[in-house]
């Protein structure tokens, strides 16, 4: 790619003049004059058409929420990833772990956006949107499924208790790493998992976010 000219600066005037002829006509200059058009709407239309043809493996959008911007991503099967901070690295991770066909496709995220909005407004306690759990495997996936199933809004559980509920009482460290790598935070409520005795433990979106979510659900006083 070193031969390209990403700055679009005019290159070699002498080169161009040679092509344009010594009589000084400015054909080259005239050929450069094209109004730029906003292509965003065209891109959106093309991607919606591509989606109808089944070509969008991962669609995403960034949504502003009370806990900051969230990157929401979904496959045709469901919500596959929620990333804090609107971080572009989430898209790269999806490109390598799911498919490089990763494009902005707000329509695919309409349902999860609506449910999140209701959740943050205090009008929703469970998420009904389909999730695609392909980014978690093995025991981590088992633990995250148990969490979704067994720890409702406004309740908390310790890493140890969650290990016990999955029939694996010695696995509290593995439970911790399952929470730390939860691909779909908030919808899969890893913020409800604390240390034994009530210490907060960690959170991928930052402890402030964990505290915010627990207070929002009334699970943490003060």
């Amino acid at each position, binding site marked *: *790619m070193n*031969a*390209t*000219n990403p700055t*679009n*600066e*005019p*290159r070699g005037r002498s080169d161009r003049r040679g*092509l*344009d*002829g010594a009589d000084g*006509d400015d*054909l*080259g200059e*005239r*050929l*450069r*004059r*094209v*109004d*730029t*058009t906003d*292509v965003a709407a*065209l*891109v959106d*239309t*093309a*991607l919606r*058409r*591509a989606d109808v*043809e089944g*070509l*969008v*493996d*991962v669609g*995403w959008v960034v949504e502003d929420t009370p806990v900051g911007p969230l990157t929401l991503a979904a496959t045709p099967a469901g919500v596959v990833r929620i990333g804090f901070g609107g971080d572009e690295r989430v*898209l*790269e991770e*999806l*490109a*390598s772990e799911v*498919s*490089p*066909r*990763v*494009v*902005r496709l707000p329509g695919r995220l309409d349902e999860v956006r609506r449910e999140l909005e209701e959740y943050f407004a205090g009008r929703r306690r469970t998420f009904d949107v389909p999730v695609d759990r392909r980014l978690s495997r093995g025991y981590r996936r088992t633990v995250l499924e148990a969490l979704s199933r067994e720890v409702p809004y406004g309740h908390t559980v310790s890493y140890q208790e969650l290990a016990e509920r999955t029939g694996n009482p010695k696995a509290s460290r593995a439970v911790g790493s399952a929470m730390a790598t939860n691909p779909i935070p908030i919808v899969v409520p890893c913020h409800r998992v604390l240390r034994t005795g009530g210490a907060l433990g960690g959170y991928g979106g930052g402890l402030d976010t964990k505290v915010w979510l627990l207070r929002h659900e009334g699970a943490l006083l003060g």
Partner: protein
Amino acid sequence: MTLPPFQSLLDAHAPDLHRFLVAAVGRHDGDDLFQETVISALRSYPGLRHADNLRGWLFTIAHRKVIDQARRRVRQPVPAADPPVVPQLDADPLMDAELWDAVRRLPPKQRSAVVQRYLLDRPYAEIAAVIGSSEDAARQSVRAGLQRLRQEVTR
């Protein structure tokens, strides 16, 4: 081998891709071919074996769309009863209608080469890769295209 998210190609290259196609075939057809290019590219993207020149790859797809369109035009002559085809100048972001009409009468390879060279400022090596020729042949396409434009366009 990891390909970047397709979105990053769109962010980097969609505006130039659109300019290229609008310059090569006009506003209306350019918008259509742009969408077709995006869809075709997305379809074949996961099969790419390397990510060395994604811009060139996208423009190659666009160039082929221009060639295909030119072939379709030849196969489907305008019926005699129809009014003559008038370029849609109103909707056209190209300011120099006479010149761009002449550009669109060039053979597609010359057209593609001239547009890439002058509108997009691309080096000959890249133009050659996109139109599938040697660098010398790309230079020749640009030169021949300009020569023909100069004959057709008033100063």
